[in-house]
């Protein structure tokens, strides 16, 4: 497989973009950073499939396409299904020798937002992982249904206000915890599962390359701050991502073969959850005296999760 060098940023910058501009994602959206990085970290032909979501509606506005590779869109939930079908077709045609270029390496990638990964497309994703197709699934986790007006999804963390879990005098926003999708996908016995963030571009590129090289289904959950629904200025996207990884709200780690957990990034100065929450408008109400206890709960959850990850890394289970 032809992987491009990610030794340093200068070398990486000589790669040619295969995800074009003039898509209609919001200014400051992290989706396109993640997608671009995936497309730039390999020279191989790619077959990309996308679930319905911000990425799909913004990159395929008729009559334009922003993709310089084969790109399939079918329904909300079935990026994993369509890409696994394409992968099987490629395998069979390669065996029969009916491809135009039989030796060209092809990688299969599916993109989904958090709504289509955690909720709507979960059954299809789980099925594709059970069938052990050779593809990489990347979840662009912005913690709500941003495309349709910011409704809550099962990726929305506790305390966040969304258009269907509105904070006010009687509620502090969403009351339920976020689903631990990385652990769920690792439990499928997938060879490579990881949680990555665009601010650590090198870790992310290396993670993508590992996933593309690994045979079998790989899952990567990427943090994608949404300036529209998390309510911050577009220019702060990278700052918010830094806060997310440094407060351990989004710890970066990988799991090989369902049990070997490696923590990829240990922040030198762990910042408090309060700093991360305070930077976003969707948590503004938590700083009222009556809802302070939610911040304490979020901090406790983060600490427990970080302790659990460290113990898992040590115990290799």
């Amino acid at each position, binding site marked *: 497989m032809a992987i491009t060098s990610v030794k340093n*940023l*200068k*070398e*990486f*910058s*000589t*790669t*040619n*973009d*295969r*995800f*074009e*501009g*003039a*898509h*209609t*994602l919001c*200014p*400051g*959206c*992290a*989706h*396109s*950073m993640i997608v*671009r*990085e995936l497309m730039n970290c*390999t*020279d*191989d*032909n790619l077959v990309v499939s996308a679930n319905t979501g911000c990425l799909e509606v913004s*990159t*395929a*506005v*008729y*009559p*334009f*396409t*922003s*993709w*310089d*590779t084969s790109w399939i869109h079918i329904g909300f939930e079935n990026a994993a299904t369509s890409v696994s079908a394409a992968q099987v077709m490629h395998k069979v045609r390669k065996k029969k020798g009916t491809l135009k*270029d039989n030796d*060209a390496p092809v990688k299969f990638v599916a993109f989904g937002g958090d709504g289509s990964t955690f909720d709507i497309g979960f059954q299809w994703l789980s099925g594709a992982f059970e069938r052990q197709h050779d593809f990489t699934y990347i979840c662009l986790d912005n913690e709500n249904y941003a495309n349709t007006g910011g409704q809550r999804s099962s990726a929305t963390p506790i305390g966040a206000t969304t258009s269907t879990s509105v904070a006010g005098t009687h509620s502090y926003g969403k009351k339920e915890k976020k689903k631990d999708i990385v652990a769920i996908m690792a439990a499928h016995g997938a060879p490579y599962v990881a949680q990555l963030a*665009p601010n650590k*571009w090198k870790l992310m590129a290396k993670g993508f390359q590992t996933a593309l090289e690994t045979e079998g289904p790989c899952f990567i959950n990427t943090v994608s701050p949404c300036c529209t629904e998390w309510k911050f*200025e*577009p*220019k*702060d*996207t*990278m*700052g918010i991502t830094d806060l997310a990884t440094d407060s351990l709200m989004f710890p970066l780690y990988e799991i090989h073969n369902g049990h070997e957990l490696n923590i990829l990034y240990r922040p030198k100065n762990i910042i408090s959850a309060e700093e991360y929450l305070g930077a976003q408008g969707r948590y503004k109400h938590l700083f009222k005296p009556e809802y302070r206890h939610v911040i304490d709960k979020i901090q406790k959850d983060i600490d427990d999760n970080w302790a659990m990850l460290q113990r898992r890394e040590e115990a290799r289970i």
Partner: protein
Amino acid sequence: MQDLKLRASENRGKSQLEAGFDLLGWDEVTQGSVLPSFEGDASGIANLKAEERNYSGYNSYTATVASWRVVKPVFNIDVCIDCQNCWVWCPDSSILSRDKQMLGIDYDHCKGCEICVEVCPTNPKSLLMFKENEDLETALSGWPEKTKKEKN
């Protein structure tokens, strides 16, 4: 630096119909239709730079979102250290970077999100935001001086 000949398509920035391009209505397209990103053979596209590619009119590279912008980033090559931070974090693929060097900004694709200015590590910053109607020479002539760190 902005008059770089990096544009693959002469028709860029114009609407597709003006470009003499036969466009079906959205309700006339049959299901399962294919929009080709390139004219002719598209193999080996990963090894071609944007200016060497033969983009079709369907590729969004030939379109523009310049009208979204109210402020624009201006690039000062004298201060730039070619760290490529802006290249990797630009959400709109608008940083023109060739042979490890930052060359300028693609104003047809830039939406003015200001991320490039935020991630720029130089002092003074080599990218700054200006009003959309400000011309480049005035912007570059009033570039701020290096600021000294305050000692505590």
